[in-house]
């Protein structure tokens, strides 16, 4: 049981740090959140920089420890995260790498790694949220194409994506988890309508996507027809181990800033608030240790992520909400001002117990898959 990295890993960290120190000052200014083409260019540009410096495949090829160090250091240095590259680097890419044909890998992977193409995700539907396998977007075979109709929701970066990893139903007669197929849909195909979806934080971070007889070549299918559920599960579990490394580092920074702000505005003198921040310090220190524990486990089991990701996600999403509630108490009435730091983050923290599996679903997973409790009738 130890927490020290190997000399090679520490060397990786030192090199990365040095490179970040040189690269970050040369970054262009960050585009505004509503400037989608600008954000695409910015995020892909950064990915290209990483690629050129030899860090392009850190989310894939590297060991969990290296990935941990990469995410820790980039967050600490204030570097951009994957941004528009998210689905390509962390969902679609790994799926294609694991399940695609050599031709598919050659076609799709290099542009992801080089920061040339953006992917978005077409999984959730209005009537298939927690119950993702109930999806109804229909694909029927017509010659060498699938013809796809239906609607998807919570698609991020859809406005500027080149490709969409799409789950469709190819066999409506089969059981709910069978009959699903994974397709790579070109976003310039006729019949796709994208409509921005405004969230409670006021931003249009997501989109709805309506598909009307969209033709997708059969050659774009990854995995077998009707085997898409299994293919998807690979995708969904891929990033579990290190998914929140950067965020935990960021939350710990926010905590320090909260202490400084409370000290400045006088609320530090209230022991109720102070001890609450102390407890949150414990909380996020522990979450960092849990991350290290999960990463080490993934490393020992050859990178296969366990269900431990659900344990982490449950605890973390609630801790994040508590963090921003504490931030509101540090701010007092200023917590009602969207121009103050942390106020928008408080709003977006509300999605953490919902997105990527609600806390209720996560508790089912933990209870059934880790603890072996029976499914209800």
């Amino acid at each position, binding site marked *: *049981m*130890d927490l020290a990295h190997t000399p090679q890993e520490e060397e990786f960290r030192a090199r990365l740090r040095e490179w970040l120190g040189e690269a970050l000052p040369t970054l262009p200014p960050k585009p505004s959140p509503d400037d989608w083409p600008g954000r695409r260019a910015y995020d892909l540009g950064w990915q290209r920089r990483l690629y050129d410096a030899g860090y392009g495949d850190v989310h894939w090829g590297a060991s969990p420890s290296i990935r941990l160090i990469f995410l820790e250091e980039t967050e600490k240095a204030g570097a951009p995260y994957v941004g528009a590259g998210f689905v390509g680097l962390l969902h679609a890419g790994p799926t294609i790498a694991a399940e695609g044909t050599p031709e598919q890998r050659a076609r799709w992977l290099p542009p992801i790694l080089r920061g040339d193409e953006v992917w978005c995700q077409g999984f959730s539907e209005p009537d298939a949220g927690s119950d993702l396998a109930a999806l109804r977007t229909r694909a029927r075979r017509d010659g060498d194409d699938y013809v796809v109709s239906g609607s998807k929701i919570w698609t991020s970066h859809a406005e500027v994506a080149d490709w969409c990893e799409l789950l469709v139903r190819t066999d409506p007669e089969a059981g709910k988890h069978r009959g699903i197929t994974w397709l790579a849909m070109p976003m310039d195909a006729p019949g796709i309508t994208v409509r921005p979806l405004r969230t409670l934080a006021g931003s249009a971070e997501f989109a709805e996507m309506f598909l009307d007889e969209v033709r997708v070549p059969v050659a774009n299918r990854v995995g077998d027809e009707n085997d898409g559920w299994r293919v998807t599960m690979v995708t969904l579990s891929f990033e579990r181990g290190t998914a929140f490394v950067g965020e935990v580092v960021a939350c710990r920074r926010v905590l*320090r800033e909260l202490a*400084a702000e409370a000290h400045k505005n006088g609320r530090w003198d209230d022991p109720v608030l102070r001890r609450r921040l102390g407890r949150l*310090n414990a*909380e996020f220190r522990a979450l960092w240790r849990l991350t290290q524990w999960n990463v080490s486990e993934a490393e020992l089991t050859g990178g296969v992520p366990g269900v431990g990701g659900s344990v982490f996600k449950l605890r973390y999403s609630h801790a994040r909400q508590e963090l921003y509630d504490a931030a509101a108490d540090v701010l007092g009435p200023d917590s009602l001002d969207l121009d103050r730091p942390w106020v928008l983050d408080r709003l977006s923290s509300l999605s953490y117990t919902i997105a990527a599996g609600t806390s209720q679903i996560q508790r*089912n997973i933990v209870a059934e898959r880790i603890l072996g409790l*029976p499914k*209800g009738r």
Partner: protein
Amino acid sequence: MRFQLTDDQRALRDGVRELLTRRFGAEALRAAAEPADEPGRLDRALWRELGEAGFFALRLPEADGGVGLGLPEAVLAFEEAGRALLPGPLVATHLAAGEVPGAATGEVVVAAVGNGLVEWLAEADVVRGDATGAVPLRSVDPLTPLHRVPVASDADPVAVLLTAAEQLGGATRACELAVQHARTREQFGQPIGAFQAIKHLCAEMLVRTETARAAVYAAAVTADPADIDTARLLADEAAVRGARDCLQVHGGMGFTWEFEVHLHLKRAWVRTHRTVDATESEERLAAALLAESR
């Protein structure tokens, strides 16, 4: 980074668990909690056996007759002690090994003045700290006799950590017991563990336990004061809430004296008072934030 148990550590943990299951299993625990059974007496034979197994001398250098292991191994051993609800001034005696003759081998039982309390004062051969004015109280934990003392001793951080390890063991056990019951107890025609209300209680128990585990093990590796404060806060929470949720899952059965969960809850309460106040840990962790922000 290999923040996972080594094979040796796993073997050590299994060895301690085997010893405790054999020598202080469920039946022995129940018997010890019987008020008829001379409460407050320590099983000296078991104590010596623990000594022989190296429980107290675990961290003493081999040159001094110890086992020569470190804090991580001690934490694993104390976690097992917590899991088994092993009675006695384990932390005090362990810390006395190498300083108080006979402590390391289990021949001498050592008590220590804690945060206004002394555990096992009457049974101890040696008492460390100022126990002047000690007054016995009627302990809520039938397996931990207590005296109240007017002064508090400064807490050794290792005592805080080993106590957290015991809490972790108790939390682990409470979760196991709850899951076991939820799998087998049937009401309304199915195991109660099939109901989401029970399922989610158990899931949260596991989440608290595993988060505390990461914190306790990390503190054992680093021995960093902030890590130790973190470990104690998380482990206290996992132990106390775990025992309460375990009780809730067991319904009426959990409310009987015969079923061990109340002993876990009571011991968890005792351990929260053993070293520094939780509020002090919170304040130190808050102060650390402020210091780091500068």
